[in-house]
C-alpha cells in the first residue's frame, strides 16, 4: 500500500507544495480547534475569510505577477490610495458605485503604467513597482493626512449584508449556534479566484504568463506577445489592488494613507506558501487561497491565545515561508537531479530537505505549543481554572439603568472566573458588585462626561457597534455594556478572544475598564 501511495505521489509530484500547504492549513486549524473550543465555531472559521478578503484579492493579482517571474511591491500603496480617494470622493457626495468603478480603473491605470515601464523600458520590476508604491503612498497625503470615515448606506450595505450559506445554517442550528454568514466582499473575492483560475489555466493569456515565467527568452522566440502580456499582468495586479483597496475600505469603513502597510510582503508570503515559485513559471492560482488561509489561521490562533504577542505572527510566518521554500527547492533539485545527477544524489538531497522541513516544523511546534498550552490549553489548563461564562445579568443591569445609572458594565469569565457588574452614575459615583462584595469609587462629573463623549465618539449609538457572540475560550471574558446618554439607550454584548466584534467595541470597553475600580477579593 505504501508503495502505491509512493508511486502516486511521484507521479503527481508537482502537486506536492499545494498539498503540503492545504494539509498545513488543515492541521493548523485542527490544532486550534482542539485547544480553543471557540475556534470550532463555524462563524470563527468564516471570519478568517471575512478578515482576509483584501489579502486574498491582492494575492491573486500577485500570483500572476510572480508566475511571470516579476514582483509587484506597489499593491499596498495602491490599496491605501484607493481607500483614501474613495473616502474623500464619497464624503464629497459622489455616487459610491461610480467611485468603486473609478478606483478599480485607477488601480488598473497605475498597474498599466508600471507594466509599460517593465515591459518596454526594461526597468527591473522590483524598482518600477517600488517607485509605484512610493508614488501611490505619497499621493495619499495630498488628499488628506487624516483618517476619512466613510458613512454611506451603500458602503454599509456592502459591508454589513450577511449572506447565509445554505447547509451551514442548518448545521449551526443543529449545534445551537447563530447562523454563520459571510459578506459580499468575501463572495467577490471567491468569484475573482475562480475567474483567475480560469484565466491562468484555460486561456492563451494564462499560458503566455507561464511561458514568460519559465523562460522569457524562449517565449519571445516562440513569437508570444511578451510585452503586451507583461503590461496586462501588471494591469491585472493593479485591478486586484484597486479591488482590494475597496474591500479594505468596506471592512474598516474609512480611508487613510497609512492603511495596508506591509501588505505586499504578506501577499508575497501567501503566494509563496501557496506553492508558487518566485522564479516564475510554476505554481497554481488555487494554492494562493491556502497561503492566505495559513496566514489568517496563524493570526486567529494568536488572537485566541491572547498571551502571545502579535510579533509571533511574523516569526511563525517567516518560518513557514522558509519551510515551503525548502520543499520547493527540493522539487527543483529533484527535477534537475533526474536529468543530471544520479538517482542516489537526488534522493540524498530529498532526504536532507525533508529533514530540514521537519526540523523547521519541529522548531515551530516547540516554540508555539508550550506557549499555547501554558496560557489556556486543553491538556495544560487545570480543571479549576476553566471558566464557563455565566448568563449575562440583564435584568439587574436594566434595573441599574432604571435606577439612574448611565452606564451598566458587566464583565464575566476570565482566568479567575469573575462576574462583575458595575454601575456608573452621572454624579461620578461608580458602584461595583461581584456577587461576593461591593466596591465603590468616586470620580468627577467631568470625567464621566469625557467618558460618555468618548463612547459616543466611537459610534456607540450607530450601527457600527453590534452584538457579537462566540463560544468563549475558558479564560476569555464576556462583556455586557449598556450606555444611556442623551435620551438614547443601547446595549452591546461581546466576547473577547475572537475576531468578530467590531474594533470600536474594544475601544469603548477599554475606556470603561480604565475608569472602574478593581476588586480586591476574587471569588
Amino acid at each position: 500500500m505504501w508503495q502505491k501511495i509512493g508511486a502516486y505521489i511521484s507521479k503527481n509530484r508537482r502537486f506536492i507544495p499545494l498539498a503540503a500547504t492545504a494539509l498545513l492549513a488543515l492541521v493548523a486549524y485542527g490544532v486550534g480547534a482542539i485547544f480553543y473550543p471557540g475556534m470550532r465555531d463555524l462563524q470563527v472559521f468564516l471570519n478568517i475569510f471575512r478578515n482576509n478578503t483584501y489579502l486574498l484579492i491582492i494575492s491573486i493579482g500577485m500570483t500572476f505577477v510572480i508566475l511571470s517571474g516579476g514582483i509587484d511591491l506597489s499593491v499596498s500603496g495602491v490599496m491605501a490610495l484607493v481607500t483614501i480617494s474613495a473616502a474623500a470622493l464619497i464624503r464629497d457626495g459622489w455616487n459610491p458605485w461610480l467611485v468603486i468603478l473609478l478606483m478599480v480603473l485607477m488601480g488598473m491605470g497605475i498597474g498599466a503604467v508600471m507594466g509599460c515601464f517593465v515591459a518596454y523600458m526594461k526597468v527591473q520590476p522590483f524598482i518600477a513597482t517600488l517607485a509605484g508604491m512610493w508614488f501611490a503612498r505619497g499621493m495619499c497625503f495630498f488628499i488628506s493626512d487624516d483618517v476619512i470615515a466613510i458613512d454611506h448606506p451603500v458602503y454599509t450595505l456592502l459591508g454589513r449584508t450577511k449572506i447565509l450559506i445554505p447547509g451551514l445554517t442548518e448545521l449551526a442550528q443543529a449545534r445551537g449556534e447563530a447562523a454563520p454568514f459571510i459578506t459580499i466582499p468575501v463572495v467577490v473575492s471567491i468569484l475573482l479566484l475562480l475567474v483567475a483560475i480560469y484565466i491562468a489555466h484555460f486561456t492563451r493569456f494564462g499560458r503566455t504568463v507561464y511561458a514568460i515565467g519559465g523562460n522569457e527568452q524562449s517565449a519571445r522566440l516562440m513569437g508570444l506577445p511578451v510585452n503586451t502580456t507583461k503590461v496586462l499582468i501588471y494591469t491585472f495586479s493593479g485591478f486586484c489592488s484597486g479591488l482590494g483597496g475597496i474591500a479594505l475600505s468596506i471592512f474598516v469603513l474609512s480611508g487613510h494613507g497609512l492603511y495596508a502597510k506591509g501588505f505586499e510582503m504578506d501577499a508575497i508570503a501567501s503566494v509563496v506558501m501557496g506553492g508558487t515559485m518566485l522564479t516564475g513559471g510554476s505554481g497554481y492560482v488555487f494554492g494562493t487561497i491556502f497561503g492566505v488561509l495559513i496566514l489568517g489561521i496563524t493570526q486567529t490562533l494568536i488572537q485566541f491565545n491572547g498571551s502571545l504577542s502579535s510579533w509571533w505572527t511574523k516569526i511563525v510566518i517567516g518560518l513557514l515561508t522558509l519551510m515551503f521554500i525548502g520543499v520547493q527547492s527540493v522539487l527543483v533539485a529533484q527535477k534537475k537531479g533526474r536529468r543530471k545527477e544520479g538517482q542516489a544524489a537526488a534522493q540524498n538531497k530529498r532526504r536532507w530537505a525533508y529533514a530540514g522541513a521537519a526540523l523547521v516544523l519541529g522548531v515551530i511546534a516547540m516554540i508555539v505549543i508550550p506557549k499555547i498550552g501554558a496560557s489556556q490549553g486543553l491538556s495544560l489548563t487545570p480543571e479549576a481554572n476553566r471558566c464557563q461564562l455565566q448568563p449575562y445579568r440583564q435584568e439587574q443591569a436594566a434595573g441599574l439603568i432604571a435606577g439612574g445609572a448611565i452606564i451598566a458594565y458587566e464583565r464575566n469569565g476570565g482566568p479567575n472566573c469573575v462576574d462583575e457588574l458595575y454601575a456608573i452614575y452621572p454624579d461620578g459615583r461608580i458602584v461595583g458588585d461581584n456577587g461576593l462584595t461591593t466596591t465603590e469609587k468616586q470620580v468627577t462629573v467631568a470625567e464621566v462626561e469625557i467618558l460618555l463623549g468618548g463612547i459616543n465618539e466611537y459610534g456607540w449609538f450607530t450601527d457600527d457597534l453590534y452584538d457579537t457572540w462566540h463560544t468563549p475560550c475558558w479564560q476569555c471574558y464576556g462583556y455586557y455594556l449598556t450606555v444611556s446618554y442623551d435620551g438614547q439607550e443601547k446595549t452591546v454584548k461581546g466576547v473577547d478572544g475572537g475576531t468578530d466584534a467590531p474594533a470600536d467595541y474594544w475601544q469603548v470597553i477599554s475606556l470603561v475598564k480604565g475608569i472602574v475600580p478593581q476588586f480586591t477579593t476574587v471569588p
Partner: protein
Amino acid sequence: MKQMKSKITWRKITESKLFFPLLTLSLILLFDLIFIPGFFKVQTRDGNLYGSLIDIMRNASTVMLLAIGMTLVIATGGVDLSVGAVMAISASVAAIMMNPVIIGLELPPDLMKFMNDPNFTYSPLWEVILVTLIVATICGLWNGLLVAYVKIQPMVATLILMIAGRGIAQLITNGVRIQIFYKPYAFIGQGWIVLPFSLYIVAFVFLVAWILTRKTAIGLFIESVGTNFRSSFFSGIDEKKIKLLAYAFCGFCAGIAGLVASSNIKTSDANNIGDALELDAILAVVIGGTLMSGGRFSLLSSLVGALVIQAITTSMYALGVPAFALQAIKGVVVILVILLYSEQARSLLRKLSTQKEA
C-alpha cells in the same frame, strides 16, 4: 586621430559608473543652488561644521552603510531584503545589553539605581558593539547559507529574515522600546569631530570594503560570480564561499547601521528602526549603476547613490515640501533616474555624442 581620441574620452566619461550618479547629484545640488538660498552655507560651532550639506551626509550615513554591503550582494547577482530587519535586531541586542533591567533581568540592587545614569552601562561599550556586530554577521551568514548552499532564490531567502527579523527583534526586547541612556553610545550617531562621527564610520567601512574588494582578488571574484556563476565555477572560483562572504559582510554593515540608527534616536524601536531602508539601500545601489542582475560594481557610486536619495529628501524639506508628500516625489524621481539609465536614454546619449563629433 585627434577626433578618435576625444571620442574615446567622452565615451569613457559617460560610461564610467560614477558619471550618472554624480550627474544626478549635481543636478539636484544645482537645483538647490538656484531655488534655496543659503543651502550651501556651512557654519562652524565649537569647531564643528553644521549646514544642509553636512545634514545630507549625516542623514545618509545609515543608507550609505547599508549600500556598501548591498553593493557586494547585488554584484553577486543577489539582493538582501533583510537589512532593515537586521538593523532592528542589532539595535535591540545593543539596547538589551546596556539596559537589561527593562525585561526584568535581576540586577544587584546596588547597580539598579545607576540604570538611568548617563554614564552607566550594564555591559562595557566594546562588548556591546562586538556582540551586536557578531549577531548581525550571523544574520548575514544565515542569508548567505540559504542563498549559496541551500540555493534558494536570494529575494525569497532574505524575505524570510525580513519578515521574521522584526518579530525576533521584538522578542529580544520583549516588545518594549528600550531607552538608551548611556552617553558614550549616543556618540556613535550624534557625536561630532569637526564632521559627524557617523561619517568616519562610513569612511572606515568603505575603506575596509574597498581594500577587501580592490586590493585583493575578492572583488574580481564577486564580479565574476555575478556575471556568470557557472563559468566562474569552472575557472575554479568557489562561488558559494564568495556569496556567503558577501551576505555576511552585508549583515555586518546592517549591524553597524543599526548601531548608528539606534544611537541616533536613543531607543531600540524594533518596529521603526530601518523600516523600508532596504528599499533605499537597493535604490542607492541601482542609482550607483550596479545592475540588479549582478556583475561589475562600484562602491563609490553606491555611496553617491545614497547621497542622491538623501539630497532629494533634504532639499525637499528645505523647500518646505511637507514630509508626507516626499514619498510621491521620491517615486517620481526614481522613475526619472531609472529612465535616465535605460538603454534608450543611453543610446540617445551615444547618438548625441557621435553627432557632436561628426
